[in-house]
């Protein structure tokens, strides 16, 4: 394997890009995709540590991350569809009914 | 001079052998597509009590070549409203995934030549069948992207239908294959075939075979499940806007997928290259290859037969059939299989 730090740096860069996407984009679907990038970045570091320590625990944890991601995406996209039904847009700034 | 070249190349033999095998299989696969098109048109003609193409060459064998020549020289039209990059990417994805999937298929016993043990496959990975499913699930994107990038409502409907259909039937495909995997205890396709030396899996898993075949027909978008391209309601579905060679690539992808699916069914259920009734001598690699090809050929003929026999089923019935009949049956099969494995 390449040195551990390489994987961690890659993971950090991807995580930062994901955070940036959540912060700057308005499109609800793109925000979701940025969250997926963050989850994937976490998976990289989990599996890199796993390989470094020679055990399987991190891989199991990355399955859990994938299961959570699948659940999150299915519920989240259902919310997006419900939102779209109320107001024909998925721009997150338009949904400010809770704001007084 | 030659000795030094050989010495230099010796550590990389596996790379050279792999590359040669990959090229042979890619070319063989691509050149078998016109033959399959010819076979389909001739057989369809017979099923419908007409002759089929018989003017170009002996038995009309030249017809597919004439057709592909025509498609090659046809002007490739890209409408202004299309997303250019994705429009060009979609057919490439379809053909790429179809060819890569076939590289995982072993089609004969390993044989020895020039002191080299050569397996009859391009790649033999330990997660074998999972890899096949992974790559074939990437093939959906070709159709989805074609539907999205064309900017045409018929294409969009076709893409939407096909993605829903393929996701639904992929589930059945995986669950049906799981029964075979449980019996064998391995994901490696070669080991699955080796485990069927005496009894083919079709006798142990008849229900799984039927389910896998039906789901396989749906996965390859063949009639009676060709909803994505139902010409009566959707013009031509996801490839409405495609013409010329790009259209031909969708066509090629579909036929390669047919071959791959038949090969997969042969490996999982029909015992691959083992011959059960007539003993076939090995003869280096010709014997097993012949047995395998005959089985695949029969399955392909059955696929064509299905197409000319059944009418296309309605879209909501397709979904109901997939989720309410096939998936529960596949789960039942899995449960019964696991109980039998625990008992015996």
């Amino acid at each position, binding site marked *: *394997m390449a040195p*551990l730090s*390489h994987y*961690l*740096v*890659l993971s950090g*860069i*991807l*995580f*930062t890009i*994901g*955070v*940036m*996407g959540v*912060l700057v984009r*308005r*499109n609800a*679907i*793109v925000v*979701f*995709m*940025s969250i*997926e*990038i963050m989850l994937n970045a976490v*998976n*990289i570091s989990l*599996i890199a540590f*796993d*390989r470094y320590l*020679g*055990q399987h625990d991190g*891989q199991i944890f990355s*399955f859990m991350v*994938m299961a959570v*991601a*699948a*659940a*999150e995406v*299915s*519920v989240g*996209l*259902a919310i*997006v*569809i*419900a939102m*779209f039904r109320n107001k024909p847009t998925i721009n997150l*700034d338009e949904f400010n009914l809770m704001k007084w | 001079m030659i000795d030094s070249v050989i010495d230099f190349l010796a550590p990389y033999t596996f790379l050279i052998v792999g590359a040669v095998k990959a090229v042979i299989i890619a070319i063989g696969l691509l050149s078998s597509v016109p033959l399959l098109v010819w076979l389909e048109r001739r057989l369809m003609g017979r099923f419908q009590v007409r002759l089929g193409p018989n003017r170009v060459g002996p038995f009309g064998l030249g017809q597919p070549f004439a057709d592909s020549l025509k498609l090659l020289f046809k002007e490739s039209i890209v409408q202004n409203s299309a*997303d250019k990059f*994705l429009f060009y990417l979609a057919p490439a994805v379809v053909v790429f995934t179809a060819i890569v999937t076939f590289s995982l298929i072993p089609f004969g016993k390993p044989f020895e030549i020039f002191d080299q043990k050569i397996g009859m496959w391009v790649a033999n990975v*330990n997660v074998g069948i*999972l*890899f096949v499913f*992974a790559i074939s699930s990437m093939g959906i*994107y070709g159709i989805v992207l074609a539907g*999205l990038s064309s900017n045409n409502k018929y294409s*969009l409907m076709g893409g*939407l239908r096909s*993605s*829903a259909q393929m*996701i639904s039937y992929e589930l059945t495909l995986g669950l049906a294959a799981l029964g075979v995997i449980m019996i064998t205890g391995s994901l490696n396709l070669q080991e699955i075939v080796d485990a069927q030396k005496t009894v083919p899996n079709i006798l142990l898993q008849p229900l799984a075979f039927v389910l896998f075949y039906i789901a396989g027909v749906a996965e390859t978008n063949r009639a009676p499940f060709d909803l994505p391209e139902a010409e009566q309601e959707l013009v031509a579905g996801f490839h409405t806007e495609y013409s010329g060679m790009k259209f031909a690539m969708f066509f090629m992808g579909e036929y390669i997928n047919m071959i791959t699916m038949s090969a997969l069914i042969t490996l999982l259920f029909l015992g691959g290259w083992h011959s059960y009734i007539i003993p076939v001598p090995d003869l280096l690699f010709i014997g097993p290859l012949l047995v395998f090809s005959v089985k695949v050929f029969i399955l392909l003929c059955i696929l064509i037969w299905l197409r000319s026999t059944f009418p296309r089923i309605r879209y909501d019935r397709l979904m109901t059939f997939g989720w309410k009949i096939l998936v529960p049956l596949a789960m039942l099969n899995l449960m019964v299989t696991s109980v039998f494995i625990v008992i015996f």
Partner: protein
Amino acid sequence: MELLIFYPIAALAVVLALFVVFNKSPIGSAVSLIGLMLCLAGVFIGLSAHFVAILQVIIYAGAIMVLFMFVIMLLNLKDDDNVIWKSREGNTLLTVLTGFLVLGILYKIISITLSADSSKPAKIMESFGTTAEVGKSLFTTYVLPFEVASILLLVAMVGALVLAKTKID
């Protein structure tokens, strides 16, 4: 040799991640994200986690991204012409502060990992990361989390149905 494979894949992954964030059309973002998932599957294979790599392709690239594509098709989203770089009303300061916070955390993490001696990975068996090995620990040590995950997926399925279904009054 590993670095020769790792660097191009990692660079491609970062570029694709940037494409996801900066692409104007959601379709382009989704396609870039599929590419990113495939790149990461390549990274996982480099870490000899073959089974996870395959799952990455099947679950992320094959299932989750199809869901995204499906919603994009269903809502028929075109390029959103809104300005991307307009900050949310009054939240510019918060955004900048959060950005600095994340960068600071990452800097700390990276400086710690770079200072640690990470040049010697553990010796692993040939069977590391294969389906059999991972499955063994999944169904023995981690059987409870596995079952909980299955319940989570069931709950998510029901939740998605309830949310997306039109009201029948």
